[in-house]
């Protein structure tokens, strides 16, 4: 029983990171139909910026703010330079564009920060043991921030007028423009949100899972699978998808084989796309047609 709880908890912590990355995918896709393959790089970049800011003597909270702000700027610049100028954006075009940005960001990180993996220091170092289950304080921070951020993003997209206006851009671009919603501004805001959420994921995960120039690839893949599990347009679905993926991975590693751990995400992706293309929580997506 202790083992199960320990594995479940590790899975939840890992899943929270996937959920944050997945929110970034959804935040952009739900507005403009763009799939942003550089989402994982946002996280890696934030981790690396925070580590070097910390190494240069800034206090941890300042380093985190610097990292999140830097990535937010990168996300906005990326949108203006590569997404906004394209007149007829399709999902395929967006994949090619963002893959290019992702590769460029990776090369840049390798040049600037070198090839070694490093970890940011934890917000609260140490562990606490509850009923035989060891819990890192950092895990609690990850879960807390993930909960607050996902609630905030969900509230913004589903409950505020601005958020609904953003979603309208994907549903009915022409009608949205007719009622005075700027598609360009909507896309920009969605990238800003994705940048901030991705950066938070990177900064939070760095103390536990470490960051290197290439850690964005795995994070991006897992986050994308999590978002797809949720149908790619639902924040709630993305969060649930992240947790399901994290827990399934850890349980597979613990009870079946550690070698299968990374295969879980992709097996799950294939099954879901074949059986329930709207996502495992896909009622939502089907009903919208």
């Amino acid at each position, binding site marked *: 029983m202790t*083992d199960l709880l320990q594995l479940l908890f590790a899975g939840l912590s890992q899943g929270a990171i996937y959920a944050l990355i997945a929110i970034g995918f959804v935040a952009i896709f739900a507005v403009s139909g763009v799939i942003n393959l550089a989402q994982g790089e946002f996280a890696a970049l934030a981790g690396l910026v925070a580590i070097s800011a910390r190494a240069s003597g800034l206090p941890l909270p300042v380093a985190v703010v610097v990292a999140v702000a830097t990535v937010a700027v990168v996300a906005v610049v990326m949108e203006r330079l590569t997404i906004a100028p394209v007149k007829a954006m399709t999902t395929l075009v967006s994949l090619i564009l963002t893959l290019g940005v992702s590769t460029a960001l990776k090369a840049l990180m390798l040049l600037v920060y070198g090839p070694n993996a490093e970890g940011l220091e934890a917000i609260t170092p140490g562990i606490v043991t509850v009923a035989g289950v060891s819990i890192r304080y950092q895990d609690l921070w990850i879960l807390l921030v993930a909960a607050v951020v996902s609630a905030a993003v969900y509230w913004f997209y589903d409950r505020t007028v601005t958020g609904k206006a953003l979603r309208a851009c994907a549903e009915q671009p022409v009608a949205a423009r007719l009622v005075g919603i700027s598609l360009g501004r909507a896309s920009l805001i969605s990238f800003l949100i994705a940048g901030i959420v991705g950066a938070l994921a990177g900064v939070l995960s760095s103390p536990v899972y470490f960051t290197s120039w290439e850690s964005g690839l795995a994070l991006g893949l897992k986050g994308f699978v999590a978002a797809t599990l949720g149908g790619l*347009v639902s924040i709630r679905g993305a969060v649930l998808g992240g947790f399901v993926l994290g827990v399934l991975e850890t349980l597979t590693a613990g009870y079946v084989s550690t070698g299968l751990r990374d295969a879980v995400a992709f097996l799950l992706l294939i099954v879901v796309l074949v059986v329930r293309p709207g996502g495992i929580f896909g009622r939502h997506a089907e009903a919208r047609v």
Partner: protein
Amino acid sequence: MFRTRSTRVAALLAAGALALAGCAESTESDDASGGAAASDEGPIKIGAILDITGPGASLGVPERQTLELLHEQLEAAGGINGREVELLIEDNQSTEDGAAKAMSKLVNEEEVDIVLGASRTGPSLAMRPLAESSQTPMISLAANQAIVNGSEWVFKTAQNDRVVIERMIGYMEQQGYTTIGLARDASGFGEGVQEMFDEIGSDAGISVVATEKFAPDATDFTAQMVNLRNAAADVNVIWGIPPAAGLAQKAYRQLGLETPVMQSHGIGNQVFLDTAGAQADGLVAPLGRLVVADQLPDDDPQKEVIEAFIADYTEKFDMSPSTFSGHAYDGWKLAVDALEEVGTDPQAIRDHLEQVEGFVGISGVFTMTPEDHSGLQADALQLVTVENGKWKRLDDQATG
């Protein structure tokens, strides 16, 4: 239906694109001035294929720095017998196919006289067939004995895993441990390790009761450590390289395992101490003398060589060298020694390397034979522990 179909197509496209991104290539060439080299004139060409990016980066980067330092020193001293020496460094991205491609480039296009590398076992094994078929002398910097088993043209400088395991079993025997829980690297470095523990330990009644694996780029070790905890062995062994080995060590302590833990010789660098932090205290590992140079007795034959190297390296790079730098140092010095003695004829170089005797290096004192292309025995290793984040030589070296 529009939404669902586009979602599915989009998802498949994205998955494909990401997979492609994962395979993307890049090569790093340190000094890629091409041109064919005639064997008796022009510069002597030494090639090196290292794991500079990817999971092996904490090995490959100090190795590259070491080679650059030694190359500089050699140039300043006038090259080899007056001939200029060109150093060509390739990054294999810690992959087998990257290593094979780089090897074929160095051998066929650059026509190098000797190849150093790779940093890890898997890429080294991928280079071996090319070295043998093209009859190019190669000195690997990696550990697994399979790299040189029965080889004609391949040598290596890192201590064999067999030698390491003999040393570890000796320590276990002395401590009275009989069961081992093993968490090992799932790549070439960890391949066959469990079998070797069982084979070498059989005389002492020591055997492995549980084996867990982790990918070299793994980040979460909860599952492996939970399973080791349940196996309740007398001693647990983590067999990997940093940062994975450091993260595993961290998870080990954080999950409250109090069983003594040993690590392999794969952890001899500062990156390991940085990643594992305070959780490294108390582990025992067989490492090269380099990490405990300041604690060696004065009559140690390697002390002088090691201290000179540490001084040069620290001066140039403002950081301490790792045991991996030592493997590169040994590889370079063996290569240069052979080139100085017999010139650039591949057969002569090979024959010379095979007869190396009493060669004092950083990782040990090398004596090669036709049967042993590694040249190091268990005495090349020191049992080392970690105390307050620093390497500490154990007083009792348990040579059994």
